[in-house]
């Protein structure tokens, strides 16, 4: 028992040194398997943006991996596991957000021979469509709600966001294999898989139908830090601004559909 105390003290000292060292470390929490955003190999566009920003800030990049599920913010920023989340909706209430560095939208993904249709098109009801299922009581994606509002439920299939591989990837595979005529999904996720499909699928930006203008189909995306970390947020804002062109290039290379209004 006696030997424990020195060991503890040593551990505390190491922890202290680590804290001191971490000033030069950008600690990022990310999903270990959620392409095209992030994976442990660093192949996602958020991985690449994180590396870019860390380099710009002169900091070493360190990852803490955590599946992006219920309680993610609490278990990551909240538990001081890391300091930065690379992509959250601007104004997301749980964190302090940077200025948005891109803005994207929900999109309609379809084969070239299946033209894009508006929500008011009655033919929509006969199309076999996929939507993402949020898995939270009363929650739905904006286009999922819009389909329900327009009576298109009979041929709509839900793809749960938890499962083997991203829902967006599974929906694109279903379109490729003829199981779906199209899907309505969050642009940055689904466009990546749509471009890799053989042949590549069409991606059309969606806008809110008449009467549902209160529901946003577009979301500006920011980085997120703890609410008390205003200084870090400001440094990230400066880095995002300076590397804006590089970030645009990364987003282009992942086929992230974008709208104006995401410029820091």
């Amino acid at each position, binding site marked *: 028992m006696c030997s424990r105390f020195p060991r503890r003290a040593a551990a505390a000292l190491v922890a202290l040194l680590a804290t001191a060292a971490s000033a030069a470390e950008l600690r990022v929490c990310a999903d270990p398997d959620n392409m095209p955003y992030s994976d442990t190999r660093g192949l996602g566009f958020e991985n690449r943006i994180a590396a870019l920003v860390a380099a710009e800030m002169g900091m070493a990049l360190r990852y803490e991996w955590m*599946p992006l599920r219920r309680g993610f913010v609490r278990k990551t920023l909240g538990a001081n596991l890391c300091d930065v989340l690379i992509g959250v909706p601007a104004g997301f209430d749980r964190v302090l957000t940077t200025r948005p560095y891109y803005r994207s939208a929900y999109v309609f993904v379809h084969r070239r021979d299946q033209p894009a249709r508006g929500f008011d098109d009655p033919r929509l009801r006969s199309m076999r469509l996929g939507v993402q299922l949020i898995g939270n*009581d*009363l929650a739905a*994606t904006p286009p999922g709600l819009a389909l329900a509002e327009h009576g298109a439920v009979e041929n709509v299939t839900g793809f749960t966001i938890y499962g083997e591989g991203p829902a967006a990837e599974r929906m694109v595979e279903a379109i490729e294999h003829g199981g779906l005529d199209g899907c309505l999904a969050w642009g940055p996720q689904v466009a990546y898989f749509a471009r890799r499909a053989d042949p590549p699928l069409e991606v059309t930006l969606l806008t809110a139908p008449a009467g549902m203008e209160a529901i946003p189909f577009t979301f500006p995306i920011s980085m997120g830090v703890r609410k008390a970390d205003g200084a870090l947020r400001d440094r990230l804002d400066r880095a995002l601004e300076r590397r804006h062109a590089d970030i645009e290039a990364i987003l282009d290379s992942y086929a992230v559909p974008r709208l104006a209004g995401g410029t820091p």
Partner: protein
Amino acid sequence: MLAAPRFAATIAACLAGVALAAPPPDEAAGWPMAAHDYANTRFSPLSDIDTSNAKELKLAFTFSTGVVRGHEAAPIVAGGLMYVVTPYPDYVYALDLAKPGAALKWKYDPKTEASAQGVACCDVVNRGGAYADGRFFFNTLDDNTIALDAASGKELWRAHLGDIARGETITMAPLVVKGKVLVGNSGGELGVRGWLTALDAASGKVAWRAFNTGPDSEALIGEGFAPFYASDRGKDMGVSTWPPNAWKIGGGTVWGFVSYDPDLDLLYYGTANPGPWNPQQRPGANKWTSGVFARKPADGTARWFYQYSPHDLHDYDGVNEHVLVDLTIDGTPRKVLLHPDRNGYVYVMDRATGEVLSATAYVPITTSTGVDTHTGAIAWNPEKEPKAGRMVNDICPASPGGKDWQPSAWSPRTRLLYIPHQDLCQDAETYEVSYIAGTPYVGADLKMKPGPSGHRGVFTAWDPVARRAAWKVEELFPVWSGALATAGDVVFYGTMDGWFKAVDARTGSALWKFKAGSGIIGQPVSYRGPDGKQYVAVLAGIGGWAGAVVAGDLDVRDPTAAGGFANVMKDLSQHTTKGGMLYVFSLP
């Protein structure tokens, strides 16, 4: 781990010759299953502790579980041992009640997968195990049912029943009936298809599995299916009452308690809410969710079904317990089941036929105006329907219902049902930006608030014949613990701020209370120890959906955390802290 299947098979082969009789519950002395008996009464026939001496109750022994999440389990007592199942990582402890201080006899660690924690919706709870024929059965959060040798703690078999990657977990306490272990799944919010599975108690092999959505062949609905109401009759209603394919991930899980009537040879269990679709995306009654099934234990075939909340709009579920009692109603003796539902009504039903004899509000209700016992239909109030783009205030009861999982107790002496519950309403506000798994969206944010009484918790003694409360005790927080009734006419329950209370079964008058180290959401039990004395035991350890603000260190500045429950529990952390501990009491 590679050797495990062969090992399990060997054990199973050794046991195959052993006849597994229905457990004759050692009712006088022990507490062999979570609800004490098949009828789910939670009534102890012991009467040493009574209304005159309960004030002398003293702590006999304690045991720290080493786990700090929500402790919802009932300690199980059989054969001179007490079995305690903890929340994740689902440890099992066996305490030797004959040894001074109830010494630890063995501990079993199922090595539950850590990733299961992130999947469970409402804390990482476990509602306990079951003892039968020298074996102890329990479930793990990562979807295993495990049989242990009750004396040694040695694993006899484990059956892997679900997939945590798809959001499926198990939190319920199994029931053992006629050599079968009955187990249901959790996770309806995440796109899980609900089922009840029967495992052969000797081998762990699946005997049958009844799904609660989908075609009749998979719901084990056949010729013997005779629901009382026309609204539950028809072919493949588990498919036709949904948009195509929606039933495949439609919820209707089974995470409450199962009861059994040996005379009618019927099992009863409630099914959970439909999911994970927004109600607008799943038009239809969404069968067989938010209702009750009566099934034959031998092959799982359904005898009848009744839907408490068709097209469940408010996450009301139907999982609350079914207490099987015999009552005289309008001069006629009836075999009934009592069911205090989340939708706010106490149902009294003929358990042979599924007829609703009465459905009476036990909390203030705004979401419906009543239940028609002739058609079985609940009359929803369209004004309280949550809809995209619309703010709806004063939805009563709130999503956890008039009562959530916390099981009630029945005393055959007082003929009262003791219901631990809450009085909460909620406002559905629209459109707060959120995101999950890289997907931004806007949701209807629920914010719960105290109900009209102003008291968040109530402990009600309900007279199911007179259809009114005999008495009520109001509590600061939702009463999230189970209830225990005894032949000494003492009723026990715990509070989230850590009081374990004994009240007079006939009047509700306070008799005794003890302050535990953490809030109580467990199921109290009573047993006769090897020394001949009556004991009362309960697990403390705050958590569960209601206690997640403390157990999960939630940020109460976010009122929508824990499905909106955080908003009404902000002050809980000022009243209790985390910590799993068994407390056992007796007279001096």
